[in-house]
């Protein structure tokens, strides 16, 4: 009995260590909305769609554009720019489908997709007191890429209802 327990514990420990090792870098999918470059962890990005046919749902929140048919599944489409208080008019063209464990998938409307980047966890910074042009509470971290500042979105906060 004792022995079994130990055996069970060991791989867990190893995995923990592995996890820490992995967490040292994060794979981030980046995309553009207006002048901003945003990022979300690649693990929650399911797919990117264009030419999406949104069916509006009257009486819903202003940041909800409606619903789409994603291979038989009903997926909510969010006007991400509106949700995070981006004060600039943007023309969303693409749907970034996000699936978080235990949540229904949701599609964020974005303007343009950027690169997929590996970032070092240790270089993540807290967002500044104020970010001009959008609501800071939805930004989890910022990260300085060689050419541009990457804003990592707080996905929990965004899809919180």
């Amino acid at each position: 009995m004792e022995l079994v327990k130990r055996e069970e514990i060991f791989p867990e420990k190893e995995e923990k260590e592995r996890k820490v090792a992995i967490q040292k870098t994060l794979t981030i999918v980046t995309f553009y909305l207006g002048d901003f470059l945003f990022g979300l962890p690649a693990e929650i990005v399911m797919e990117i769609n264009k030419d999406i046919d949104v069916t509006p749902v009257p009486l819903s929140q202003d940041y909800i554009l409606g619903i789409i048919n994603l291979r038989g599944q009903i997926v909510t489409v969010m006007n991400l720019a509106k949700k995070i208080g981006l004060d600039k008019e943007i023309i969303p063209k693409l749907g970034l489908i996000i699936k978080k464990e235990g949540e229904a998938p949701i599609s964020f409307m974005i303007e343009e997709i950027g690169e997929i980047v590996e970032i070092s966890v240790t270089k993540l910074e807290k967002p500044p007191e104020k970010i001009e042009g959008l609501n800071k509470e939805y930004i989890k971290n910022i990260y300085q890429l060689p050419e541009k500042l990457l804003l990592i979105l707080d996905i929990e906060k965004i899809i919180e209802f």
Partner: protein
Amino acid sequence: MNFEEDILQDFLVEAKEGIANLEEGFLELEKDRKNIEVLKLLFRTMHSLKGASGFFGFKTMESIAHFSEDILSKLRDGLIEPEENVIDILLKALDYIKYIIKFIEENKMEPIENNILDFLVELSNFNEILNKKIKEFSVEKKVEEVKGEIEQKIEKKLEEEKLLLIEKTEEKDVKEVPSIELVETHIKVDVKLLDQLMNLAGELVLARNRVVQLAQKITDEELSRSVQALSMITTEMQETIMKTRMQPIGTVFNKFPRIVRDLAKSLGKKVNLHLEGTETELDRSIIEAIKDPLTHLIRNAIDHGIETPEIRVQRGKPQEGALILRAYQEGGQVVIEVEDDGKGIDVEKIRQKAVERGILSYEEAISSSEKELLSLIFKPGFSTAENVTQISGRGVGMDVVKANIEKLGGSIELNTIYGKGTTVKIKIPLTLAIIPALIVTSGEYRYAIPQINLKELIIIQPEKELLKIGHTEFYRLRGEVIPVLRLSEILKTNGKEVQKNLVILTTGEKFMGLLIDKIFASEEIVVKPLGKWFKNIPIYSGATIMGDGKLALILDVVGLSQFVGISVEEVEKKYEVSKKVKSFAEETYFILLFDIGKERIALPIALISRLDKVKANEIQISGGKEVIIYKNEVVPIIRLDNYLPIEKIPPQDEYIVLFFTEREKTCGILCSQIVDTIETSLDVEEGIYNYPGILGHKIINNKTVLFIDIYKIIEMYDPEWFILKKKEKIKKKKILLIEDSSFFRNMIRNYLELEGYEVETAENGKEALEKLTATRHFDLIITDTEMPEMDGFEFIKIIKSTPDYEKIPVIVISALAGEEIRKKILELGVNGYEVKLNRERLFAQIEKLEENDGVS
């Protein structure tokens, strides 16, 4: 199917499985008589058969299985050799078991036949011989001769036995046990497999819809025929798959007798539980989900509802409380009722508690109707139990019950009569996955309306047929006034300019109209849930994928009805500062409020056919009377100030005219302005304005509002107005009118008297019975249903069971509408049923009765 039958089914399925195993095993044994594994299996199977048949009290079968098991155990343990005669008798035993199972399946009991009993004796003897053989073999193992002798003896005896049996069977000319092939009627299937099938069926329906749509674009007879075939097969398949998931509600109901008995015992109460409609079938997922809510309701009924035997006796009830659990199908829904004859719910106590707990302010509590107060029971944290008991009354529960039922797409309703009992009525859909729906459009998008909520479709001319008063529009559907919503307005989208399609919807309780742009099609839709972002929008119950891959939102009719409700309630709150709560408070009507000069007047909207503006210079004088030309018709104009003690209507450039039409005659009533419409009860105060044409008054928004008797006023204007054909009445008919609302009582009495009837009135059933006893003879009884002291239902029941009165025709007038109520009322054996406020129809009923009377 009841519980017993249910488990009997299980038993039969298992027995057949066992028999199949045995047959296979014996076949194996033929090949290899020493196969110990097969012997073990045979033993085990026979053993389970013995146990199961013993449980059901199938004694013969149990015995056959018992001896067979015994023999098998000897074979298994190597005590005897698997010789031909042993296998033979075992196979024979199996044949008998098969025969018995078949018989049980058909007759639900064991066969009582001599040949079976004879076989049992044979089997028992055979086993006995084997026992002896084993004993002797082990004790006198060495004495070979003896063994041989015994063996001979056994064989001889067996031979004899066999011969005997053959003789016997030949004698009786009974065929030997017929070799029966048991047909498998039940198999076990993994529920997950069924769920998957269900999903696939859903997808197939969608694919079918797509094909149907594509095929419509191509005119090819062959294709359209195949598509039609595909379509039909798909529907049938889907229905069949759905059926595989259906289970009788008895599987849940049958758990309750035990719960009820235990609970009643622990509370010192006596409860008699009746189960009705246990065979009603429901989707298994729903069956699972209603178990807890039902348990809760049953506990409540016993704990809070049914009184202790002593109290029941004091109250003149039988010692044993009655608890009825009833299920039945209605349309695409299943209705489950939990009914008890206990003490009912004290609405006044709820009122008091609501104030104590700060849920309602004192003013709110005073002005709340019974229905509103009862609905508080479903609010979280509200309980009226004086003692918190272990069983229920912890202040949690009913809100959870309601939430669970609503999660299933169902509704819950509570009716109670204080002192007499409570009925909780749950309505749930048969299945959740696929529903028939009407697809309509608003703007460029489609919406689905579940068929279950659909009453009828009407093409109307909105500008002519809709009556807009205040913010609400109304449509008159065969005498009933129903509020109308415009889908495009609710959705805040751009609808077509002229919307002619009116969909009449029902929530089960009330009707409403929904104006839409276009009716698209009737389709089977697969309900898909909407995400959490839309949970707070009451008007959707989900979404569906249409044949072309686009989405349509599914409208929630109950949610939509709240849209009528909200506005009306708001208006009501605004206007009604003081509202007295009376027994008929829940009987509410849409009332039109209008002004004549400074006076505020009220009329039920149902009485008004149209309203329109008219310029002062359009009012002409013809034959000494004021008239207007309205839609090519001469319509006389009535000024209320000529007949009522109110100020003259001040001159205006433009007036409002309320049109009143009966039997194709129309007149108009002139008024200064329309104030609004409200939904309110008609509990008017009498006395202060005691004047012909005024039924009473009521304070609404701090202003005295006069409720007028339109019939009386029109009669004052023209006594001949209502008299179309002057009939010589042979005898003055005497009518007993029972109605608790003074408004209706007086109005109906007035117009009955106008027609030449002699009318006696009573305010409730009890008073009516007194009147009946005093004045033996009445030609007709007209009664309301909802009344204090004794309601219409009880009153009619008494009338119909009293020889002196049973022949008096009864017409019921009720504020309650809907098929269910109609059915309930007509079941009482009454002669007619009319919704209140329809004079024309009431007279038609009376005339019909008189005609019949004349014939007989």
